[in-house]
C-alpha cells in the first residue's frame, strides 16, 4: 500500500536495527540507552511490530503520558458521567472513553442505566446530533491533545456560525509539552532522549520541543508512526546520545514542519485559552489544558452543568500514574495480567488502544 509499505520494508528495518546496535555499542554506560516515546500511538506501534524485542538490550523504551484517554483524571470522568445522567442531556464522545473506569463506573454503565451516551467519530458528528435533537442538550466530552483539539475548535465555531444553541463542550483537552516538562522536572526516571509525538508536532511544529535540548540538554526526535519512522528516530537519538549532542531532529518531515500547522493553531486560539489541567498520575499541571474562551462561555459544559469535581480515589494497587510518568513499565505493576486485563481493566492504561498497558497486554 502506498505510503505504508515503503515505511514497513523489513530489509530496511533490519539495516536500521543493525546500525542502532552498532552505534549504541560505542557508548560507555552501565545501562541501555533509555528513550521515552511520549505518544501512545508510538507505544502501540513499537509493541505491534515487536521493535522492543529487536532493539534490546541496546535501547530501552519507556512509554510516556501520550494517551489522551489515560491521562483523563478520574474526577473529570466522574463529572462527565454525572452530566450524562442529567435528564435531557445527550453526551457524545469518542469510543475509547466509554470503558474507562471513573470512581463509580464507566460511561457504558451510565448508558446501561438509561443515560443517552453516544459514540461519535468526529466532533462534527456530535454537532449533527445537536441539529437533529433541538430539544436536547448535547454535551461533547472532549479529550485529546493538540491533534484532536483543532477539530473540536472547528465544531464549536461551526455551531456559532450556524446558530446551533444546544451544543456544548466539556473540555478536557490537554497540551503535551508541559507534561513532558513535568516528567523531566520530577526527575523520577533518567532519560537519554525523547521520541517526539508526530501528529501533535504536525500541529504545534517541531519547534515546540526546542526546550528539551535547550533547558534539559537531551535530544528529541519527532517521529512518524510506521516502523521505519520510529527506527529512524531511534537511530538519530542513539547517534545524538553517543555523540553527546542535544538537538531537535525532525525525522517526520513528510508530516511535520518546524512551525506546524498555522491554520489549526489559529483555530485553537479562536476557541480556547490555555488553562491549568488535571492529569491522571500527575495532578494539576499549570498551563497544560485548553479551556473555552470567554466568548464561547455559553458553550462551556462545565459552566452549563456546574457539577462539583470531587476527589476520586485511585483503585487500590493501580499504578497507571507511574506508567504514565514513565517511572515503571506496565509489567512492573502487580495487577498487570493478574487482576487487570482489557476485559476487566482497573486503570485507563489497560482500556485505551493507545494505553501502554493495553499495548503490552495485546502484543508482548
Amino acid at each position, binding site marked *: *500500500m502506498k505510503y505504508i509499505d515503503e515505511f514497513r520494508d523489513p530489509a530496511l528495518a533490519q539495516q536500521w536495527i543493525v546500525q542502532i546496535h552498532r552505534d549504541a555499542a560505542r557508548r560507555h554506560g552501565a545501562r541501555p540507552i533509555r528513550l521515552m516515546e511520549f505518544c501512545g500511538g508510538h507505544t502501540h506501534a513499537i509493541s505491534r511490530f*515487536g521493535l522492543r524485542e529487536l532493539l534490546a538490550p541496546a535501547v530501552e523504551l519507556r512509554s510516556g503520558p501520550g494517551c489522551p484517554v489515560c491521562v483523563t483524571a478520574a474526577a473529570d470522568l466522574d463529572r462527565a458521567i454525572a452530566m450524562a445522567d442529567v435528564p435531557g442531556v445527550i453526551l457524545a464522545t469518542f469510543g475509547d472513553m466509554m470503558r474507562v473506569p471513573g470512581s463509580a463506573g464507566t460511561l457504558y454503565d451510565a448508558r446501561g442505566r438509561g443515560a443517552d451516551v453516544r459514540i461519535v467519530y468526529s466532533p462534527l458528528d456530535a454537532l449533527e446530533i445537536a441539529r437533529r435533537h433541538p430539544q436536547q442538550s448535547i454535551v461533547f466530552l472532549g479529550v485529546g491533545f493538540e*491533534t484532536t483539539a483543532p477539530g473540536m475548535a472547528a465544531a464549536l465555531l461551526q455551531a456559532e456560525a450556524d446558530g446551533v444553541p444546544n451544543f456544548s463542550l466539556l473540555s478536557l483537552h490537554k497540551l503535551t509539552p508541559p507534561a513532558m516538562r513535568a516528567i523531566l522536572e520530577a526527575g523520577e526516571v533518567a532519560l537519554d532522549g525523547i521520541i517526539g509525538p508526530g501528529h501533535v508536532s504536525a500541529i504545534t511544529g517541531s519547534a515546540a520541543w526546542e526546550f528539551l535540548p535547550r533547558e534539559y540538554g537531551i535530544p528529541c526526535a519527532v517521529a512518524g508512526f510506521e516502523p521505519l519512522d520510529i527506527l529512524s528516530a531511534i537511530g538519530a537519538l542513539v547517534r545524538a546520545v553517543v555523540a553527546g549532542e542535544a538537538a531537535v531532529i525532525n525525522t517526520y518531515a513528510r508530516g511535520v514542519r518546524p512551525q506546524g500547522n498555522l491554520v489549526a493553531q489559529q483555530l485553537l486560539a479562536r476557541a480556547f485559552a490555555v488553562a491549568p489541567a488535571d492529569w491522571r498520575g500527575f495532578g494539576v499541571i499549570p498551563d497544560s489544558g485548553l479551556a473555552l474562551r470567554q466568548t464561547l462561555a455559553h458553550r462551556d459544559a462545565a459552566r452549563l452543568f456546574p457539577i462539583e469535581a470531587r476527589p476520586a480515589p485511585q483503585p487500590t494497587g493501580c499504578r497507571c500514574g507511574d506508567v504514565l510518568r514513565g517511572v515503571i513499565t506496565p509489567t512492573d505493576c502487580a495487577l498487570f495480567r493478574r487482576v487487570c486485563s482489557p476485559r476487566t481493566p482497573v486503570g485507563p492504561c489497560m482500556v485505551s488502544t493507545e494505553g501502554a498497558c493495553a499495548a503490552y*497486554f495485546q502484543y508482548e
Partner: protein
Amino acid sequence: MEDHILLAHGSGGILTHELIRDVFARYFANPYLDDLGDAALVGELPPGRVALTTDSYVVQPLFFPGGDIGALAVCGTVNDLAVAGARPLYLTAGFILEEGLPLETLERVVVSMAETARTAGVVIVAGDTKVVDHGAADGLFINTAGMGVIPPGVDLSPAYLQPGDALLINGPVGDHGLAVMLQREGMGFGSTLKSDTAPLHGLITALLDAIPGQVRCLRDATRGGLATVLNEWVTSSASGGPGIEIEEAAIPVREEVRAACEFLGLDPLYAANEGKVVVAVAAEAVEAALSALRAQPLGQDAALIGHITSEHVGRVVLRTPYGARRILPMLTGAQLPRIC
C-alpha cells in the same frame, strides 16, 4: 396492501395472511411452504449425520455494499452447516418486524433471501412473523435455523488438529466488517469496498471431495474475525488445545481494507467476514487443498497462512515481517477507532 408494517400484520388476521401470501409465500415459493401447515414435512434425509444450527441477524444498516440482512441470514446459517461438513438442505426463517417498517424494505430483504437461498441450493421450508411496537426493534431482525446432512466419512473437529497441520484461508479478510462499518458510520471513503457475504458450501464440498480424510476442521471467520477462530481452536479442549503460528505477511488483506484499518486504528484480523473459511489440513495435503480451493470462484485468493505447532500450547502467535513474534489474543470488547 398497506405501505408500512402495522401491528395488525402480526395479529394473525387478514393483514397477516396478506403479508404471508403477497411477500413470503410469493418469493420463497416451494412445495413445503405452499402447504402453509404448522410444520414443514421434509420427508426422508440422505444418509449421514444430521446437523442443525441457528443464528439471529441484527445487522445495521440493513443494506450494505455487497449484501443485505437477507443474504446474510441465508449465508450465515448455510456456512455454519457447511463448516461442520454438512450439505445444507433446509432453512427456517423467523422475522421480527418493527411497526412502521416500509413494506418495500421487507420485500427487498425477502427477495434477496429467496435469491440467495436459490443460489445456495437450500429451501426455506418454514417461517414466522412477529411485529413489535415502534422503537422495540431496529427495523427488522431475522432468525434462521438450518438443517443439513454430513455425508458418511466426513468427520471434522478441532480435536483432530496435530502439530504440522497447515492453516489456509480462502481469500482476503475483513471485507464484511469494514464495508458495514464504513457504511454505518457514513464515512466517505472505501466506497469500492464490498462485503464478502457468500454461501461457502460449494467451495467446502469441492475441498472435502478433493482431499478426503485430510481436512481436520473448518470454521467460518465471522464475528471476531480470523484471530478469534484461531484462538477458539487453541483453547478447544479442556486439556488445552495445540499452539498456532501464523505469518502476518501471508494473510491476504485487500488494499482498501488495510487502508481503512490503518486510518481508523483497527486490525483486519479481528474484522468480521461472511464468506471466509479457515481450513486446517494435514501437512502433506497443502498443495492439493490450495489447488482445490483456488479452482473455485470463492477460493481464487486462497493462501497458506500458518500451521499448528506443539510450541506455546494454547496460544496463537503471529510472526511479523521483522521476524518478531507476538501473541494474537482473543478480542476483548468491541474494536473502537482511536482518538488521535
